[in-house]
């Protein structure tokens, strides 16, 4: 596979990789770095790519693993994270009252979900993958994914209902 063919293969889903990375890493720059890293890794094994059933699923799995590794190493090296969380949640509490942009709200709620639920929401509700594909990418059973998805959606609903009612009352 030469460079042009590789870019042709990769371009339909490179945005998906980026959005998945951004979902997990939050920062746009870090997500861009992660996506580039994954694409380069993919390029270095381009001889074996044609043997794969789905390059996209492979790339999604690689992105997921890379981002989770990044998060793990960041957390291990940062002991003040607890304090940061505390101040962060205070700030968002203030924003909660002021923020009229509900779309941002949804993003914040999703970002507060556990990583696995974030991944599933991202892949199902945003990228609209079939459960079968998500199961392959995450190496989990479809039933587990449905349960986690339902849980994540219900969490979003709960928080949204709360803020919705807060706005009214």
């Amino acid at each position, binding site marked *: 596979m030469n460079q042009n063919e590789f870019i042709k293969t990769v371009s339909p889903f490179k*945005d998906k990789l980026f959005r998945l990375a*951004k979902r997990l890493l939050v920062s746009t720059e870090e997500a861009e770095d992660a996506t580039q890293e994954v694409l*380069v890794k993919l390029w270095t094994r381009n001889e074996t790519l044609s043997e794969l059933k789905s390059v996209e699923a492979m790339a999604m799995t690689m992105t997921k693993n890379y981002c989770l590794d990044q998060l793990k190493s960041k957390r291990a090296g940062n002991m003040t994270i607890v304090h940061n969380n505390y101040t962060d949640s205070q700030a968002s509490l203030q924003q909660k009252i002021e923020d009229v942009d509900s779309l941002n709200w949804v993003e914040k709620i*999703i970002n507060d979900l556990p990583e696995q639920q974030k991944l599933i929401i991202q892949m199902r509700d*945003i990228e609209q993958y*079939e459960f079968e594909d998500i199961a392959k990418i995450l190496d989990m059973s479809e039933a587990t994914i449905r349960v986690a998805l339902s849980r994540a959606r219900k969490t*979003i609903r709960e928080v949204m*209902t709360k803020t919705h009612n807060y706005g009214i009352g």
Partner: protein
Amino acid sequence: MALDRIEKLIDKYFEGETSIAEENELKTYFSSLDVAQHLQQYKPVFGYFSQAKAEEFKAEIPLNTKKRNVAVWLSIAASFVIMLGVGTFMYLNTIEEIPSTATAYGTYDDPEKALAETEKALALVSEHLNTGIESVSYINEYQNSKNKIFKK
């Protein structure tokens, strides 16, 4: 779109039972303007999903493996040239040296021949030395005449 169908779909949605088609149905419903009052709270959720999907990866794909290859080959070529240069320099030096030492100190493998040559060379030197002395011997005349004039 019937409201009770939407409500059913929402229930299904939160149980994680909806298909992609049904979810798209919900998305279009919530992106429309006439969303029922009691469902308004879900509007931003679906709105966000559509918005989030629009985000694009803008950074370039750094497939610099080719560039790296060029650098590697360039360094290999450069080291080859340097080695070739040093090699020819050394080679030419030794080529010049070998004949010059041979003529300067000329060696013989056969000892008898060497002895003969050495004797010949020494004879030549002593012969010339003697002719030199002969030509200088008239200087003694000065000494003789001086002694004649200044008698002690």
